[in-house]
């Protein structure tokens, strides 16, 4: 069995930064990532997209630099072993062994410490008609642009809110997509509420970046409708129209976005401690200031531990790497503290604007718990909001109990899409908080595995 000091899962900003830092401290590092190349979600395909003018700016500059730094530290000289196209599907917490799948073959690898840098996913936006072909996550369209240079061809609606909607609108318009209508779902009072959160001065660089995007989007002809409510997608066999309270528009595609949330699938499956974050309206693993979880083997860095953006992700990656070196006896404690200090400063600056953004772009209650009973909540098993409410009336006290009444959370996505919505609906119906309703507890394998892939495991380790 291969053995490493530190196994990092994810080659986004957090995983790349952690790997480079750890290797520089003499720690042997393995980085596994599902994607073909380093970059993570934010800098996906940054190396192969270098010639695309639509992606010019932070993506190519900062992302390119991160990927180059990571590549330079690979191999015998640098001390990092990188395994792309490799999926983590199991962690044996007691033995310190991870199981990964590559080229449809499974392998067990021993690690003294495991750093999960698995990032974020888009928050599911369950509106009526969101399962129709032609409706996608906004992030999904961005992935097509980054990986294939492709853009939606016909009239396009971008509905929802958050910094990513403006960035995507600009990137798509630069690439010749459109016409694009943005349906902003934010509430009218959100801006004033957000101002009270503060952080504008410390976060002014990020704020300026955001204002620049809004300007460019408008200059490029983005049509914006504000304070949109009661969104629904309609069409025969695919989306053809979007309706909202007081308006409608024909379209060829609808892209939805209500921010991103940590991917807690693995950390929940491992039974690590989590808490419901009232500010970001999502579950996050409980971490100490070094990224350590409630289990001694595992740490979390990046957006998987709470949404902070790529600069915060890279800083938490470095901090977790320094902690790993200290735990492995490669660094005295005072040296670890000293080394972490500049990264803590970077982190604080990167997070300064978060409370403002979290309030400005807080999803409406109906995003968390759709009001129309016919809205599909669980895309895999086609279970709607009304069925979940009914299960709550019958006695389901949380998403884990709801499984006994419905199959919600038992399809191939294992509740990645519906878990929080089911909890929110039950909470609403029973008059309890989402925290009380609880989080789904998925099981390994983290991704469905065929028996043949399982059989690829050596019968005896070593």
């Amino acid at each position, binding site marked *: 069995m291969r053995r490493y000091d530190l196994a990092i899962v994810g080659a986004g900003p957090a995983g790349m930064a952690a790997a480079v830092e750890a290797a520089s401290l003499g720690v042997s590092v393995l980085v596994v990532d*599902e994607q*073909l*190349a380093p970059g993570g*979600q934010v800098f996906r*395909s940054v190396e*192969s*997209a270098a*010639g*695309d*003018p*639509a992606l010019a700016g932070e993506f190519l500059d900062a992302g390119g630099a991160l990927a180059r730094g990571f590549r330079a530290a690979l191999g015998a000289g640098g001390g990092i072993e990188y395994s792309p*196209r490799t*999926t983590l599907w199991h962690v044996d917490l007691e033995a310190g062994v991870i199981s990964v799948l590559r080229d449809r073959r499974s392998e067990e690898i021993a690690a003294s410490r495991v750093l999960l840098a698995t990032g974020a*996913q*888009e928050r599911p936006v369950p509106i009526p008609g969101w*399962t129709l*072909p*032609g*409706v*996608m*996550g906004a*992030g*999904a369209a961005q*992935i*097509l642009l980054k*990986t*294939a*240079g*492709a*853009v*939606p*061809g*016909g009239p396009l609606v971008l509905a929802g809110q958050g910094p990513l909607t403006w960035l995507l609108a600009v990137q798509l318009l630069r*690439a*010749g997509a459109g016409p694009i209508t943005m349906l902003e779902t934010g509430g009218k009072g959100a801006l004033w509420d957000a101002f009270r959160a503060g952080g504008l001065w410390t976060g002014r660089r990020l704020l300026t970046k955001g204002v620049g995007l809004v300007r460019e989007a408008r200059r490029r002809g983005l049509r914006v409708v504000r304070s949109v409510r009661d969104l629904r997608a309609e069409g025969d*066999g*695919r989306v053809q129209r979007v309706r909202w309270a007081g308006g409608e528009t024909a379209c*060829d*595609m609808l892209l939805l976005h209500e921010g991103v949330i940590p*991917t807690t699938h693995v950390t929940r499956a491992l039974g690590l401690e989590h808490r419901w974050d009232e500010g970001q309206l999502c579950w996050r693993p409980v971490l100490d200031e070094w990224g350590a979880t409630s289990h001694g083997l595992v740490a979390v860095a990046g957006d998987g531990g709470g949404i902070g953006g790529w600069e915060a992700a890279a800083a938490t990656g470095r901090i977790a790497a320094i902690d790993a070196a200290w735990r492995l006896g490669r660094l005295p404690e005072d040296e670890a503290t000293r080394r972490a200090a500049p990264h803590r400063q970077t982190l604080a600056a990167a997070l300064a604007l978060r409370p403002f953004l979290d309030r400005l772009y807080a999803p409406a209650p109906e995003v968390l718990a759709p009001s129309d009973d016919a809205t599909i909540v669980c*895309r*895999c*098993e*086609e279970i709607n909001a009304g069925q979940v409410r009914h299960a709550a009336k019958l006695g389901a006290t949380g998403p884990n109990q709801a499984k006994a009444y419905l199959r919600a959370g*038992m*399809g*191939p*996505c*294992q509740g*990645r*899409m519906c878990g929080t919505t089911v909890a929110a609906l039950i909470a609403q119906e029973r008059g309890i908080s989402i925290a009380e309703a609880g989080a789904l507890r998925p099981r390994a*394998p983290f*991704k*469905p*595995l*065929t*028996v043949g892939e*399982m059989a690829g495991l050596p019968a005896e380790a070593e």
Partner: protein
Amino acid sequence: MFVQRPEARPATVEVFVEGLPVLLPEGASAAAAVLLAGLPAIRETPVKGSPRLPYCMMGICFDCLAEIDGVANRQACMVPVAPGMRIAPQRGARHARLEAEV
């Protein structure tokens, strides 16, 4: 539907979506091939037979399950295209869930 921009990203890898040739840039996924081929659906749901296309493109939603090179239930958004790859929509199967319960 989606259109390519060969001036920004040359399409060099040929795959077959339901027998139809599609050219894509290296590093694009099988799910991207289905979207660019303009297929109306990549799968039908086992419960109601509704058509679906990829939703998240990043391995979360499992709405992209397809048959790739004869193997059913592949998460098409996580499979990079390779020359000659054969991609076909998947109809009805519940296998992914059964296999998840190993």
